[in-house]
């Protein structure tokens, strides 16, 4: 087969697919972070841990209750969302009137607690989670082999991301959310229960993380540290895209995943740092991020 710049196409497309998969997770996670930051002004450091909790809940449902992938895809995010509601109602809510830093510290502490609990219970070796029967196997696209499950993850993540974008930018509920992000006092003065909206926003944001966790379970092993490995990159994605920008989070997440994949092909040594190099450059040129507005 023809070689492209001295790279076999299988290797190139293989890495691009891997990049797209990683990008899908970046997009789902940074989307949740962006929604939460926009509404609550909280940098949710517990996001990675709740992604891990989502994966573990899917695994626990499977091993203890015999509940498979498809129901878990709905149940686990709902459970993570419920955990989020509880955290917001009992703890985060108390911190809105003080410096944002306290929200960051609280959620960071929560992340450590969640990880500690699961590490204590299940160790760090990781638990396997099978690919559901329907999505086993793959297809030869001619230029590359596409495992069905990976194709599903990319397609489904894109669907969820753009569904969320549509709901926020084009619907009435989304208009409430955008307005309350801008001026919660006035939205409340129109008769909308903003504190409930804030709770639901946090619940929804972390439910997205839980969903990403379930999607990730069959690809990576279910591991208490899977969140903390990923979340550092995701925060870099959010900084590059611009804090609080919905479309920015999605586009940057996917774009950086692809870029990481490409770097692995052309200059593997830099693959682990390329995102951070881009973050540094973006911060120098456009401190509010590529899609962010100056506050």
């Amino acid at each position, binding site marked *: 087969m023809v070689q492209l710049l001295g790279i076999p196409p299988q290797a190139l497309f293989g890495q691009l697919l891997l990049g797209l998969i990683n990008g899908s997770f970046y997009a789902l996670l940074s989307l949740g972070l962006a929604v939460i930051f926009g509404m609550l002004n909280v940098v949710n450091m517990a996001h990675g841990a709740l992604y891990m909790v989502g994966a573990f809940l899917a695994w626990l449902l499977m091993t203890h209750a015999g509940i498979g992938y498809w129901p878990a895809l709905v149940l686990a995010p709902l459970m993570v969302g419920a955990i989020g509601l509880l955290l917001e109602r009992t703890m985060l809510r108390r911190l809105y009137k003080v410096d944002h830093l306290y929200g960051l510290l609280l959620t960071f502490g929560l992340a450590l607690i969640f990880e500690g609990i699961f590490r204590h219970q299940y160790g760090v070796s990781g638990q396997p989670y099978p690919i559901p029967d329907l999505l086993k196997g793959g297809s030869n696209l001619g230029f590359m082999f596409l495992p069905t499950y990976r194709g599903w993850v990319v397609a489904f993540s894109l669907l969820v991301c753009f569904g969320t974008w549509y709901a926020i930018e084009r619907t009435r509920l989304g*208009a409430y959310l955008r*307005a309350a*992000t801008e001026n919660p006092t*006035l939205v409340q*003065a*129109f*008769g909308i229960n903003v504190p409930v909206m804030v709770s639901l926003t946090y619940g929804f944001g972390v439910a997205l993380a839980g969903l990403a966790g379930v999607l990730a379970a069959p690809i990576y092993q279910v591991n208490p540290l899977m969140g903390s490995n990923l979340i550092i990159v995701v925060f870099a994605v959010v900084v590059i895209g611009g804090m609080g920008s919905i479309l920015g989070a999605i586009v940057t997440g996917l774009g950086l995943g692809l870029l990481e994949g490409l770097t692995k092909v052309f200059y593997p040594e830099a693959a682990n740092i390329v995102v951070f190099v881009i973050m540094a450059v973006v911060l120098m040129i456009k401190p509010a991020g590529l899609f962010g507005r100056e506050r």
Partner: protein
Amino acid sequence: MPDGSITKTAMLEVGDLHAFYGESHVLHGVSLDVRQGEVVTLLGRNGAGKTTTMRSIMGIVGKRRGSIRFQGQQLIGMAQHRIPRLGIGYVPEERGIFSSLSVDENLTLPPVVKPGGMTVPQIYELFPNLKGRGSTQGTRLSGGEQQMLAIARILRTGATLILLDEPTEGLAPVIIEQIGVAVRALKARGFTIVLVEQNFHFAATIADRHYVMEEGRIVDMIPNDQLHANMDKLHTHLGV
């Protein structure tokens, strides 16, 4: 009309209202009443407590003491988001047009709380400037158009009492005239309006009665037809 007396038909009754921003005591026993269909202004210098009175009625200022009754219902202690649902619309001083929302989205943002609100075509008739601007970003409108939009979006909700905080601030005379026409039209439609105004001439063309505020208190109440007789007194209060 027995001016100044609190009658049973009062729509809004504020009695001995004290309000606080943190430690500072801003309102010191404000009492006023607004009857159904009336336009009442709050006059006074900057910092006299006019805006705080409105924010207290809406529950935005949370630390309050005394009594605020709307159609007999006590608002102090009521959950903040329930107050507008009784039929009170608020147009804040800074207008509060949302930049992340289009003109249409701004217009339809406040939920309808009571039947009998104006329809969108009726609103466009009142504010022709807003017509055809639906997809424009809210904050791209001119200052006057933003003010019209801020009033317009309340009219849809079915609110019967409207709190208008300085609708003419920073606007050109020709725009102020348009706002005046609109407010008079609202009055004719039976809306009850509380108006905070620095522009005393504007207030005089619209209002039935004027409350004069000073240092967090009501110091005088002047019916509009006695305004000219009270000019000297008013000048001292307002320092104009």
